[in-house]
């Protein structure tokens, strides 16, 4: 854990590193469609959360200076994780990217990205990062499959620097950027946009969404396998914008920090740090929803931690399923013989099948009386169900 991010990235890039991405998230990522959009949502904890002092307003990060800690926690409000004095200093700031079948993983650090690409096989991902959020430097010996585009230095083109501009985020520009020097039929590419919030603040939401759709369409028509992964800070936008943008995504992963709880005895020592609500909309049929707790372990391995609700639900079911016939001095159940005997018993007013069918068919036997009743206005008919008090 004391490694510098760059060397950690190298460690992660080593092929011997076991791929251990949250396994249950993996299989639902569509394999056939060349591109899809993931929204990564980071929500701030509720103000009532005990350890949370209200995070200071995100100060605009000054270029060239080390940003203060509060803004280094990427201004998403999840800085509260770090502000509890009893906790260790923050390791990551709630932005976790999970990719299919463990091929790639990235964990957003405080002020930096760590990229890992493990596993083997044909899926080689190339990642282009468009960083609009914070000055987050790429690891100094840049990993070979990672290209990093700085959108932070000069987002509005005031300094004529070579950085990425906001207006460059349209389909064609992004595609040429992503493709870069690669040929036509290259390996699949994942484009990570950090973050969509900045773009949404500078452009109309419709324009941003149309740009992303254009990018996917162009990529699809040129045979490039492209996935787009966007981070969105939901607390910076109105609920309508968040809903409308996530409506267009094919998968949505919503991350929210968990309050730090002491690890229960007998369970894994890794406390889940973050809860992930994932929704994968399939092209046909139902959408798949899932809730998982994710913890980051040493070496930036993401691990899915099962929900710790066993104790509560167990207690509830105990009370509801309590057998009232458990401690009785007499027996309330029937044995098989008794049950058979009861079945054989004919009740005093029990009709034979022949008589029953005759009655049901409406054929009345000779000599049987019938009641013809004409209801009139003076009748006092009780509408209530006479069996209402029966507990059935």
């Amino acid at each position, binding site marked *: 854990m004391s490694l510098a991010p760059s060397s950690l990235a190298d460690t992660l890039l080593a092929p011997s590193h076991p791929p251990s991405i949250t396994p249950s998230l993996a299989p639902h990522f569509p394999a056939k469609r060349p591109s899809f959009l993931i929204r990564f949502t980071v929500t701030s904890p509720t103000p009532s959360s005990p350890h949370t002092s209200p995070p200071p307003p995100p100060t605009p990060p000054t270029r060239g200076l080390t940003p203060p800690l509060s803004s280094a926690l990427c201004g998403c409000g999840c800085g509260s994780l770090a502000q509890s004095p009893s906790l260790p200093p923050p390791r990551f700031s709630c932005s976790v990217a999970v990719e299919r079948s463990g091929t790639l993983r990235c964990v957003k650090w405080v002020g930096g990205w760590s990229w890992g690409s493990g596993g083997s096989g044909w899926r080689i991902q190339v990642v282009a990062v468009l960083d609009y959020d914070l000055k987050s430097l790429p690891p100094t010996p840049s990993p070979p499959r990672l290209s990093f585009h700085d959108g932070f230095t000069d987002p509005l083109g005031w300094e004529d620097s070579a950085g990425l501009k906001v207006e460059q985020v*349209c*389909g064609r520009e992004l595609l040429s950027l992503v493709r870069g020097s690669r040929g036509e039929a290259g390996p699949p590419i994942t484009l990570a946009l950090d973050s969509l919030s900045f773009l949404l603040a500078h452009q*109309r*939401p*419709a*324009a941003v*969404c*149309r*740009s992303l*759709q*254009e990018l996917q*369409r162009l990529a699809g028509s040129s045979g490039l396998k492209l996935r787009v992964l966007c981070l969105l800070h939901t607390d910076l936008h*109105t*609920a*309508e*914008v968040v*809903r*409308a*943008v996530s*409506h*267009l995504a094919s998968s949505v992963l919503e991350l929210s920090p968990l309050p730090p709880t002491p690890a229960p005895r007998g369970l894994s020592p890794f406390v889940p740090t973050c809860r992930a609500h994932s*929704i994968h*909309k*399939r092209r*046909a*049929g*139902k*959408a798949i*929803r899932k809730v998982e707790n994710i913890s980051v372990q040493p070496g930036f391995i993401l691990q899915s931690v099962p929900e710790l609700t066993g104790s509560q639900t167990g207690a509830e079911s105990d009370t509801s399923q309590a*057998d*009232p*016939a458990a401690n*009785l001095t007499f027996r*309330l*159940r*029937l044995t098989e013989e008794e*049950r058979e005997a009861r079945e054989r018993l004919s009740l005093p007013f*029990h*009709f034979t099948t022949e008589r*029953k069918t005759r*009655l*049901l068919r409406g054929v009345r036997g000779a000599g049987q009386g019938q009641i013809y009743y004409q209801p009139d206005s003076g009748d006092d008919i009780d509408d209530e169900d006479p069996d209402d*008090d029966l*507990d059935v």
Partner: protein
Amino acid sequence: MAAPTATSFHRRSRSQTGGGGGGGGGGATATATAASLPGTRASVHNGQLLVSTGVPSLDYMLGGGLAVGTLLLIEEDKYESYSWMLLKYFLAEGVVCGHSLYIASARDHPEDIIQELPAPLLDDVAQSTLEEESGNVNSFATASQNSMKIAWRYQNLPKVQTALVCSSRFGHYYDVSKTMSVEQQHSVKCHSFFLPDEVPLEFDVTKTGDMNFGYIKLLRSIQSVVRKEGFDGACPQTKPRNILRIGIHSLGSLLWGEEVGLSENPEHSCSLTKFLYALRGLLRTSLSTCIITVPGHLTQNKVIMGRVRKLSDTVVGLESFNSSERETNPLYKDYHGLLHIRQLPRLNSLICDAPDTKDLAFKLKRKLFTIERLHLPPDLSDTVSRSSKQDLAESAKLLSSGCGGGARGKTHLDF
């Protein structure tokens, strides 16, 4: 004389297509064309010319089908899966009946949508599955008849008919797991409108005039198709007539450049309503029907949705259990979602053909999308109990606590 025989011939054919009840005087022109148009029939209620939506039970709910010249608005479910299915059924029905199609979308290219259309089932296959189901029901009924011992008088009660089926068959069934063959896909004429192709991205769709530019382009495109391809009902046509089915996907989403629900005071807050008004006027005078899906759950503003609904003829809302907590409710375990009929058209009359119940649920099976009446299943398990009654019983027991503590147990008791 030749003319009277011709009219009597028309009448007979009308009564054949209409399945019995003649429509009377009202839609004389509509019924005259009904005989010559494939995939249509006259309504038994008002003689209006109807086409099928591709889902027979939805046809039943809407009074036999979708009237030509009207607009059906579908409010999408949250993850858009079932409204997407309904749109595909509508288009596939058009392909099977040989109607012309017009597909407009901002997300998927219309060519891709056509390739995704479900394969039609042969009529006897669907019939046999239906019969099989009803046969199962019947056998179940006979079995329960034999087993009924105490409450045997209830045996004569008719079985609750949940499935909504017309008496005469209209519309087809589709197999969702297969797609239509390529020849069939190209057997009909299809016009397409793909927003990114029509309106360049650099061009801001909201920066023109007082209406969203994408909507203007779409209206003009539909108008030119209606005029040039002979779907115009106003002027006499020489060519053989056909029906135009218009399907517009996810109108009013961000991809159409619509930002109505997003800001407090958007510049083009009336764009969508203006478009619907103009489109409806266009539809009324043409041989076309239109289905529009709208992501209604995105706009929380009830006024806007109310206007949009008022400007459509028929409005149907889908609510899938997939997105809500209701998925786990035992009441809904047989269904995939609820169907809300928000508005039914009153065509050439003051009343509309309202369904007998508004509690409707839908389920999607591989070969069948059905809409059924939602009713409580018999409560056969001993753990599920209706809470209010249980509470009542509990309080009653508390009052009369003197008698029999043994009767308190509710479950697992034989007596």
